[in-house]
């Protein structure tokens, strides 16, 4: 079900100290990347409340990119590890809700890694493009009636979650 006209909408959450600066650097260096990512600046990836991700996905985003400082390099010493823990559990919960875990990605990018930021953003857009639209924002409120025939495959939460190194 690939749709050639599908342009993913992606919300990116960036850390004020590393990845937001990396995106600034990508700008200063005029690196070109996919225009589908819209950024929100947080003070730290540790500020990332899973609610933000759920709000974005339920509100029409096709993917969410979370970026933080490399492990061991957090400007608040170790809060990016806390973001990592949350992210891993959040992905499991999202999987249980039938959302491809690849739609939420955690990327480490330091303030110096403008090129990495740009490349990751572009790569993520392509990954989401392959997955297709999420369409949660357009999901109707459940009024539609139902025919009782075909059972689908039963969705179970999977514990196989991919993790960025």
């Amino acid at each position, binding site marked *: 079900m690939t749709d050639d006209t599908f342009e993913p909408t992606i919300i990116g959450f960036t850390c004020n100290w590393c990845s937001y600066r990396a995106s600034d650097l990508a700008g200063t260096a005029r690196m070109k990347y996919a225009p589908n990512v819209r950024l929100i600046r947080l003070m730290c990836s540790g500020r990332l*409340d*899973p*609610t933000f991700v*759920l*709000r974005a*996905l*339920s509100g029409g985003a096709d993917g969410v990119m979370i970026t933080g400082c490399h*492990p061991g390099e957090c400007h608040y010493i170790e809060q990016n*590890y*806390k973001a*990592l*823990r*949350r992210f*891993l*559990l*959040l992905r*499991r*919960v999202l*999987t*249980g*809700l*039938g*959302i491809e875990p690849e739609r939420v990605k955690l990327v480490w990018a330091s303030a110096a890694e403008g090129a990495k930021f740009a490349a990751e953003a572009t790569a993520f857009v392509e990954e989401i493009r392959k997955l297709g639209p*999420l*369409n*949660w924002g357009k*999901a*109707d*409120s*459940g*009024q*539609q*009636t*139902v*025919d*009782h*025939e*075909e*059972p*689908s495959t*039963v*969705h179970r*939460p999977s*514990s196989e*979650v991919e*993790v*960025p*190194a």
Partner: protein
Amino acid sequence: MKPKFAMYWAASCGGCEIAVLNTHEKILDVDANFDVVFWPVAMDAKYKDVEAMEDGSILLTLFNGSIRNDENEHIAKLLRRKSKLLVAFGSCACEGCIPGLANLSPVGDIVHTAFNTITTDNPHGIYPRTSYDVPEGELHIPTLAKALRPLEQVVDVDYYMPGCPPESHQIAAVIDLVVKVVKGEAELPPKGATIGVGDSTVCDECPRARNVKMIKEFTRIQDIAPVDPTLCILEQGVPCNGPATRSGCNARCPQAGAQCIGCYGPAEGVMDYGARLITAFSSVIDATTPEEIDHILDGIPDPTGQVYRFNLAGSLMKANKSAWEKA
């Protein structure tokens, strides 16, 4: 003339009705102060009687159960029209509760499971049909919606009373309050308030001792022996929903030696209950590598069910993707 009172039972187990009866002699106050006009479980009344009432003529309606089919939806809208105060009564009406977990599957699967499992005696593979022609005319049964919805997703709700079911003493207190309001002795809380509950979470009422928590392993309560009866259950490695669950139950489950499962829903002002539990559980994990963290998370075998047991239908995502996609 006494003000009018109604109570309705939509998609739910009936426990809420039992809880009302459990208020003992307080139930007599209802009769003494109200004219009960509609309460299918307690008295005979027809939908058309309700339809015939004047709009806004019922002072108080306690609506329990969530919206699973078109009949539920019809009555919800009807009672909304006829009532001054519509209370989402019990966890099902407030946030979907256990029936809401059905939103993890497409409705076709649910019906299939109900009519075609190994324990179901259905030799001819007969499935219900929503309409059927008989010589007397066409018969209808209610049609299932794609997903279950809490009351507020269908109609405007004045007050919320969570709990599975709400504690009887709180029901009594609410009845007292409304009686006082009717007599002009008290004022109503602001619209949209959650009533008959505490401001904080279950931990606030839990007498167990707690420390800074660092968990190396999540486990089930039956797998730890012995359970320390005085120490925080989460600290012992059992995913207890208490930290994120609204207080008001007096920490009944933890007091009885079991983890909180979250029936009172989120605390005041929280947008998504499951997200609060995700951060609660991940915050106590004592590991830094993805491998270690994943290993610890394996101790929560059904994370989605764990964090959304009572709240899925009322959550931001509301349902599994398959429930939206599949008809």
